[in-house]
């Protein structure tokens, strides 16, 4: 097996994905593809009301229906509350969220009972026979109305829908540089105040959720196959909710059809299915209908924002002050109350300000709970500051690009510059990224075209919008998480093991579901250990195969999990070096390592790492006292977040007669540090930008007065198809992170964070000569048209 030729370096190459053949030929295995002998089907009975007390539940008709095995309510299926892992401070209100509600329904879709039957069809039919004595109550789904006196109260014991505030000056572990107050009191400074509403979003991973629980009754063991991003976290939360010891609980994330945060959750249905399997000793399966998912799977965003900027008359930004009011929906799910905080430090963007204040208030409403949706907190921050920078530019009559340039954190400040909000950015070159974007765009050429377009009197007008953005990702340093009152850590783990035949087995604690780490991690290992890319197999997503890990979210796969992998590789190399010195009868210092070979300096004596792997496995001739096996595990806790950035520009055409918006160009220059596989980076950006554009132009979940979701199916919620999206023009700069040995940063959420303000800024720019200063998002033709009419008045 040992090769003596040095394999070509893998990092930086556009390696085709190892994942693809199975996914392309229908050999994939998603949860709904799994069938277990003796399996029963579960179907949830859900509330049709947004707010209603439960007078009683009659399950008798359902219990006697054809094929029905059991019907349970909260009274007969004993489960603990679902885990909420981020009580942001002492005033955070998080009433217990039980998998099945027993007192009242708090949102349309709240599960109240579960039917178990021999087939899904029988379970569906019987679920309709469960009679609930609903006593409807007035509902409130709007954030502001929920805070008004006399509003319906979602959690009666609290006596309020105010779920608590988080105030940076009081609650942040990192002190702000200066309070913002004096700047806003300074009569010499120009102040602006902007207010935005960010719509409620439905994540729409293409695979609906599902769970299959298999039972080994004789051993008291359970295997939970779940469409989840977080098998390890889910194992812990299910152990707590269902009373199954973690050692007896195996959670498997098989092929998972997208997540975007929606599968970063401890859902009622996972706990209910495990509880049923435990109670009855039978395998249980539940899969979500898409329309069911629209009310049962977490929603994203929805907040009111207020951002104020103070700047000198010549455009030097001095201070930023932000207040948010965020919808929790009806319950605090796993990290719901902390989502707005993930943007807390970023409302100053990549601008070097002096004063900073930030606070947010969480509000209960009668809708589906919100939680992490791609970007989580950072798209919100980026939207506010990037829209506000354009507003400031208009106020000061400055070019929006010139204003940004004037305020960028200078490149010389890096590495490791502590910004006014108190955190430390690892590295960046904001000017370099913007330069490249402007060059690709031909900014001056565009402005000339715009002047000509306006002069022509064409009813279709053009505009350009920018988003020079940054984010903090790679969640996260455990000590920081502790200071923010998050219960768990932010480390991750990896194991690298040479197999006797010379292949390398890699275990990673992150749980990819489309991000391609089976490929990129193999590239890292191939280069580090000098083995063939084809000889590296990456395993993930099964807590029995990979016991240690904290899963995939927050753009952490590479910058945390990948670095853990590199650290494990370093340990393997150190041990291999010791064995090589032993076999070659030299000192370790006399060995050079390249291309998989340890060579005695100045000689042709060498040992290949695969052969050393076999030596370690056979253990025939190891140094005295050395343990057999060439394998190592590393747990890596990042010392800082990673801080990618970019400059995105969107060019739109707006039909002033209809309000229709067409994206003519989308230019995105991103810097995610060292690039492992450009194909995969670009793919992440394409998809992220698409979701960001969708957020800006198309997607919104709304509710009627009674609290009914008005986009109850995929026919009415506008997930864009291919015709709605443009071709993307991507560029990049590379500013390595000094925080980790790979120099990498995250990229999974970048596009979604960056794109929305670029799109809306472009629309406002196109209409600026008509006096339009804001269009609420999503910028539907009706809203754009109304904004034009409003400006005329």
């Amino acid at each position, binding site marked *: 097996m040992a090769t003596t030729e040095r394999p070509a370096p893998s990092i930086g190459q556009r390696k085709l994905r190892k994942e693809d053949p199975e996914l392309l030929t229908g050999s994939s295995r998603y949860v709904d593809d799994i069938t277990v002998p003796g399996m029963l089907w579960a179907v949830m009975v859900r509330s049709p009301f947004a707010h209603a007390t439960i007078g009683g539940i009659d399950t008798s008709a359902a219990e006697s229906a054809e094929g029905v095995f059991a019907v349970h309510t909260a009274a007969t299926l004993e489960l603990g509350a679902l885990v909420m892992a981020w009580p942001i401070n002492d005033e955070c209100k998080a009433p217990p969220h039980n998998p099945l509600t027993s007192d009242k329904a708090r949102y349309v879709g709240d599960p109240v009972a579960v039917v178990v039957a021999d087939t899904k069809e029988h379970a569906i039919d019987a679920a309709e026979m469960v009679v609930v004595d609903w006593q409807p109550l007035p509902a409130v789904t709007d954030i502001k109305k929920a805070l008004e006196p006399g509003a319906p109260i979602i959690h009666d014991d609290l006596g309020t829908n105010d779920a608590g505030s988080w105030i940076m000056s009081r609650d942040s572990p990192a002190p702000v540089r200066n309070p913002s107050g004096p700047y806003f009191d300074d009569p010499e400074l120009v102040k602006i105040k902007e207010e935005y509403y960010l719509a409620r979003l439905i994540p729409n991973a293409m695979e609906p959720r599902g769970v299959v629980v298999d039972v080994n009754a004789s051993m008291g063991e359970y295997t939970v196959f779940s469409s989840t991003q977080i098998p390890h976290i889910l194992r812990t939360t299910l152990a707590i909710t269902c009373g199954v010891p973690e050692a007896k609980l195996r959670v498997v994330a098989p092929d998972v059809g997208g997540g975007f945060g929606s599968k970063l959750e401890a859902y009622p249905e996972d706990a209910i299915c495990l509880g049923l399997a435990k109670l009855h000793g039978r395998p249980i399966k539940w899969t979500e209908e898409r329309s069911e998912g629209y009310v049962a799977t977490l929603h994203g965003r929805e907040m009111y924002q207020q951002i104020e900027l103070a700047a000198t008359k010549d455009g030097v930004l001095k201070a930023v002050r932000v207040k948010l009011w965020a919808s929790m929906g009806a319950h605090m799910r796993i990290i719901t109350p902390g989502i707005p905080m993930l943007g807390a430090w970023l409302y100053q963007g990549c601008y070097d300000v002096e004063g900073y204040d930030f606070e947010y208030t969480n509000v209960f409403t009668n809708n589906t709970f919100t939680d992490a949706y791609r970007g989580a907190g950072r798209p919100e921050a980026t939207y506010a500051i990037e829209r506000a920078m354009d507003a400031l530019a208009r106020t000061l009559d400055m070019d929006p690009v010139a204003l940004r340039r004037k305020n960028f954190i200078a490149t010389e400040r890096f590495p490791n510059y502590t910004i006014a909000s108190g955190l430390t950015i690892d590295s960046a070159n904001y000017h370099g990224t913007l330069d490249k974007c402007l060059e690709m765009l031909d900014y001056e050429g565009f402005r000339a075209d715009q002047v000509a377009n306006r002069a022509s009197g064409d009813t279709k007008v053009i505009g350009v919008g920018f988003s020079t953005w940054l984010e903090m990702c790679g969640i996260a340093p455990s000590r920081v998480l502790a200071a923010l009152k998050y219960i768990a850590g932010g480390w991750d783990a990896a194991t690298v093991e040479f197999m006797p035949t010379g292949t390398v087995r890699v275990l990673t604690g992150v749980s990819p579901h489309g991000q391609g780490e089976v490929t990129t991690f193999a590239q890292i290992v191939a280069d580090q250990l000098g083995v063939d890319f084809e000889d590296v197999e990456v395993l993930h997503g099964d807590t029995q195969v990979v016991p240690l890990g904290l899963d995939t979210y927050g753009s952490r796969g590479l910058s945390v999990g990948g670095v853990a992998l590199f650290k494990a590789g370093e340990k393997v190399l150190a041990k291999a070096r010791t064995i090589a010195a032993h076999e070659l009868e030299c000192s370790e210092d006399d060995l050079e390592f390249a291309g998989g070979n340890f060579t005695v300096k100045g000689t042709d004596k060498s040992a290949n790492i695969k052969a050393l792997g076999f030596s370690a496995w056979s253990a025939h001739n190891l140094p005295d006292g050395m343990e057999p096996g060439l394998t190592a595990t590393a747990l890596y806790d990042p010392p800082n977040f990673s801080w990618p950035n970019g400059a995105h520009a969107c060019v739109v055409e707006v039909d002033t007669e209809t309000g229709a918006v067409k994206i003519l160009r989308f230019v995105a220059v991103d810097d995610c540090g060292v690039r492992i596989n450009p194909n995969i980076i670009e793919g992440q950006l*394409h998809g992220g930008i698409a979701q960001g554009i969708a957020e800006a132009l198309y997607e919104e979940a709304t509710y009627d007065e009674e609290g009914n979701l008005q986009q109850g199916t995929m026919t009415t919620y506008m997930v864009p198809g291919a015709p709605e999206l443009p071709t993307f023009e991507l560029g990049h700069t590379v500013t390595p992170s000094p925080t980790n040995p790979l120099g990498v940063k995250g990229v999974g959420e970048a596009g979604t964070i960056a794109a929305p303000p670029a799109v809306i800024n472009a629309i406002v720019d196109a209409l600026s000569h008509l006096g339009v200063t804001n269009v609420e998002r999503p910028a539907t033709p009706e809203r754009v048209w109304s904004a034009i009419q409003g400006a005329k008045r």
Partner: protein
Amino acid sequence: MKRITVTVNGVAHEKNVEERELLVYFLRDALGLTGTNVGCDTSSCGACTIHLDGESVKSCTLLAVQADGAEVTTIEGLANGSMHPMQTAFQQHHGLQCGYCTPGMVMAAVSFLNENPSPSDDEIRHGLEGNLCRCTGYHNIVKAVAAVAAGEVS
């Protein structure tokens, strides 16, 4: 129950089906062909796209009984164990991430090129408008289909 005869991926099947059973569940549950995915309940997403007598259809829009006497091809049968050029192109151009929409997207793309062998990028986008993808932003899917049309993939 009704008895139907349907040829799937070249194999003839004679089965009893419930009249209300959708074709996609017949393929997945009765025949075990789980490569065809279900992504919605409103015929919106196209994840379940297959070929029926050579043309792409969403297999959730048909009852199994409507496929009586028909020839069905699913993703498993597109190249019978190897890779169809469209599948190869999707890998080469990174036209898939999570893979859930992919079988339907590939089947729709093959059928589209049968109808329009030399499409523009814009025609490709409109040709695939019935198939939703949440991962790729469609950019690389369009490239993959264009590459097959241009004969750049074998």
